[in-house]
């Protein structure tokens, strides 16, 4: 059996010509190999993407094998290729294991290893300087979402800046904002029990989200579901569907509105549900009256007959029918009404809190209230008093229409004009945690300019990412396999919690992000705002009222409490009441429909939203607005997720790199013939903001007017030695465009192609 030492030694021997950047694992004079105690199994949480599947890490001597945690039933004990490759990240000689500071110009790749203390002093000195000169508002803090973001965001609050951003606006923010406006809360999908599923390019079989992917598979396995996919290319999702409609990019909204049109016109919607729970139906219905299937088919290339038939089939399957709200999904600047329109279909089907429909997460607060007793433990919210109040509003609130988006994680891309044009005011420093805007924010050149314009940039990451390469100081974060974290809420139909815990000793001189941000605050003499000693203290504060929860979670990794509950399912409510004798009495229908609450201004589902009118005139009613996504001589350029990589984070990980090193461009053979392009040819793709080299992949599985590539490739920084220059950089081709209200970065544009 190979020890980790041998493994690393052999691993680096294969890459003998590689010169490792200072601070990386490969550059350490002697490889750092801690003695891993023999442990059979530790339960934790994956972090190779944002789904956070509960995992079980089997450890044989010093070798790790990662599989799914069987306690988390909906995840089935399964992991995807990324999830099971976690040990490759852990042992990658390219990962950063020592703090480094920049010694040459930004992006030059000139670094020097430093000690943590020096790094903290440098950061404290520079951030204090920016604060003194421009105020704390001039510091932006951004992080990918997930448990680790809470410490970075708390750091932002402690220094007093309002400018705190999640990656949301570059990925899932649209549906979150639409749900907030309409329902006051986000919704989950009960795919497993559905009889009819509409899918607008949410590729659950490649952009894997384990419990949703498995829910969909389970429904298909039962054979009782019909899945209809609208997507410009033949994704695996489209392949496995019952029907695939190769819709014109960015026009899904036309189908969505026409479906509502038919449901209303033919009186196929759930009238009693609408009457009881919906406000603004009349305004919505009036607006929908103009969107006939015939009108839609002109716009989107789906036949009017199909739209009408699908609407009828949906209604026949209701309420066990749903329209999936999608994920990383900004197809059009009209994203807000597209996602609202999708939710509107669900409302018309009356599938809220029904089997096979959509539902709200049953966190312990609501669940215990319904049960009439504390059947599920609750986590304490850790409050820190006396945090400074920012003087200026957030930079993305200059336009009031982004009020909801600002609350949902903000407009990440607004850092760019703030840095370059001081609009609405200057951002001079940037603290990034596990975030890679050079890949995920559109118009890479401007992102680079913004980073170059900063007085000071700190990045905290496991690699010198494309963005970290432009930082002044890069702090090496421990990988998820080496760190403990706070308890996370993973409630679905019943309350559930999960815990990430370290499964192996830390390699090199890395630290977990909770510690990094606490110590950064210490260095700035703000440490008193991080009152917990360490993460165990933090966990104990979370479980102050349920001390037995923590040891249980340490053992099981994932715990769920109670029985599944959908509030408008009489069976489930009856079972729930049998289980909990003190449970709330049901409504006369035998369900908890009367307990449904929506935290919207009207307290109901808002199919039209009068309050939106104040912040965005003309936007209260869902409507169609024409958009131009490409010029007549151009092709649509769309992107998507791969099952082997997570956005912009995993391209350099050994094995995953090997399994998918780049992103060939999908082109229809007829289109390729027009440009004399053969399969495998090098091509040049040009948009209004950039030009990129790629490889052509000829396939019938795409529209003739569209080209496709997986996102996250074509890194332009040498530090990512494997991924450097492999494939085409999508962000370098996408112009900066922001969707109304949701604030998301638009991902569809026009390009021209030619043989390179």
């Amino acid at each position, binding site marked *: 059996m190979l020890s980790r030492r041998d493994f690393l030694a052999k691993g680096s021997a294969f890459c003998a010509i590689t010169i490792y950047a200072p601070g990386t694992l490969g550059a350490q004079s002697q490889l750092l190999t801690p003695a891993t105690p023999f442990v059979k199994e530790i339960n934790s949480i994956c972090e190779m993407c944002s789904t956070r599947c509960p995992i079980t890490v089997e450890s044989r001597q010093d070798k790790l094998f990662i599989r799914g945690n069987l306690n988390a039933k909906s995840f089935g004990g*399964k992991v995807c290729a990324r999830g099971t*490759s976690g040990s490759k990240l852990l042992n990658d000689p390219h990962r950063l294991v020592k703090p480094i500071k920049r010694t040459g110009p930004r992006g030059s790749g000139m670094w020097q290893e430093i000690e943590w203390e020096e790094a903290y002093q440098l950061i404290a000195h520079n951030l204090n300087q920016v604060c003194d000169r421009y105020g704390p508002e001039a510091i932006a803090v951004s992080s990918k979402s997930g448990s680790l973001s809470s410490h970075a965001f708390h750091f932002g609050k402690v220094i007093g800046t309002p400018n705190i951003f999640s990656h949301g606006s570059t990925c899932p923010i649209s549906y979150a904002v639409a749900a907030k406006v309409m329902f006051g809360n986000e919704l989950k999908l009960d795919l497993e029990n559905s009889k009819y599923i509409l899918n607008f390019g949410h590729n659950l079989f490649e952009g894997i989200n384990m419990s949703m992917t498995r829910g969909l598979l389970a429904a298909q396995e039962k054979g009782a579901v019909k899945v209809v996919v609208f997507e410009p290319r033949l994704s695996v999702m489209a*392949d496995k569907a019952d029907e*695939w409609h190769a819709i014109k990019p960015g026009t899904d909204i036309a189908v969505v509105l026409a479906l509502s049109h038919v449901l209303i016109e033919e009186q196929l919607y759930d009238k009693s549900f609408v009457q009881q729970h919906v406000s603004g139906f009349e305004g919505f219905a009036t607006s929908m009256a103009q969107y006939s299937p015939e009108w839609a088919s002109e716009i989107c290339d789906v036949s009017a007959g199909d739209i009408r038939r699908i609407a009828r089939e949906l209604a026949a399957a209701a309420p066990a029918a749903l329209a999936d709200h999608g994920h990383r999904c900004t197809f059009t600047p009209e994203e807000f009404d597209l996602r609202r329109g999708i939710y509107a279909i669900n409302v018309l089907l009356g599938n809220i809190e029904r089997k096979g429909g959509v539902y709200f997460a049953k966190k312990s607060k609501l669940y215990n209230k319904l049960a009439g007793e504390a059947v599920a433990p609750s986590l304490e919210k850790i409050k820190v008093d006396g945090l400074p109040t920012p003087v200026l509003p957030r930079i993305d609130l200059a336009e009031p229409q982004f009020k909801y988006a600002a609350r949902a994680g903000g407009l990440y891309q607004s850092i760019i004009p703030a840095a370059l044009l001081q609009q609405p005011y200057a951002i001079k420093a940037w603290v990034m945690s596990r975030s890679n805007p050079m890949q995920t924010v559109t118009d890479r050149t401007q992102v680079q300019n913004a980073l170059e314009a900063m007085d000071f940039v700190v990045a905290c990451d496991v690699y010198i990412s494309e963005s970290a390469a432009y930082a002044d100081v890069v702090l090496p974060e421990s990988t998820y396999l080496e760190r403990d974290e706070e308890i996370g809420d993973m409630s679905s139909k019943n309350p559930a919690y999960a815990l990430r815990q370290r499964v192996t000793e830390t390699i090199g001189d890395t630290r977990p992000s909770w510690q990094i941000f606490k110590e950064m605050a210490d260095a700035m003499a703000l440490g008193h705002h991080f009152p917990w000693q360490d993460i165990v203290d933090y966990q104990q504060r979370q479980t102050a009222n349920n001390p037995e929860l923590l040891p249980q979670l340490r053992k099981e990794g994932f715990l769920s409490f109670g029985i599944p509950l959908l509030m408008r399912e009489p069976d489930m409510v009856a079972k729930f009441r049998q289980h909990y004798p003190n449970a709330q009495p049901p409504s006369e229908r035998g369900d908890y429909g009367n307990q449904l609450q929506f935290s919207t201004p009207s307290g109901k589902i808002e199919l039209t939203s009068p309050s939106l009118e104040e912040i965005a005139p003309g936007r209260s009613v869902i409507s169609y607005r024409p958009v131009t996504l490409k010029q007549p001589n151009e092709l649509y350029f769309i992107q998507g997720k791969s*099952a082997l990589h997570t956005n912009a984070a995993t391209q350099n990980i050994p094995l995953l790199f090997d399994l998918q090193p780049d992103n060939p461009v999908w082109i229809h053979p007829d289109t390729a013939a027009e440009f004399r392009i053969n399969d495998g040819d090098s091509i040049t793709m040009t948009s209004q903001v950039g030009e990129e080299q790629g490889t052509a992949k000829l396939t019938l599985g795409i529209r003739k007017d569209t080209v496709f590539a997986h996102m996250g490739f074509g890194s332009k920084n040498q530090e990512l030695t494997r991924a450097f220059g492999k494939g085409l950089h999508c962000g370098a081709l996408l112009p900066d465009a922001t969707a109304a209200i949701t604030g998301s970065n638009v991902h569809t544009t026009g390009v021209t192609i030619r043989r390179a």
Partner: protein
Amino acid sequence: MNEKFVLIHDENRCIGCHACTAACNSANELADHQNRASIDVKGPYLIDGELHYRYLRVSCEQCDRPACIRACPYGAISQTIDGVVSFNHDRCKGCLMCVAACPTGGCFYNKQVKATDNCDFCMKSRVAEGLQPACVTVCPADALIFGNANDPNSEVHKHLSTVLTYNRSIGYDNKPKLYRVASQVASERSRV
């Protein structure tokens, strides 16, 4: 009763996600760029006017009549009583006669152990510990089923007797123990 271990790959369920490839790599300590199994997503093919992919598992077929064994001059490849073909890394001299003889490309030179190697149904790693093979353990789509076909209560036995399976035809009567369920998606799709 003899055991007969077989692996079934259900192309209907497979989503081409390569979790199997990655899990095998990490469980069997292969180099980052070497794999015992892979999934070839082929196509799309036009079937009945509709486009479809085919998900083909590419790995050692675990022949009952293995060409590799006959080709090896050093007796480095053996077949156990339960039918599993596995490579003895200590005996292998790296002459690659097996690689030349194998009709499927199912064996390869493993740089990590400096000998030829194949998918051995995880017999020397996880199955020896009473676990399922690594690929089967993680497959998100439950597309892989492993077990003893001679055990009437096993899932593989039930599957082989109720679901139509096929073996890849590889030119001679090698009798693979890797079974496949062909994709039904085209015929199951509702006519539009």
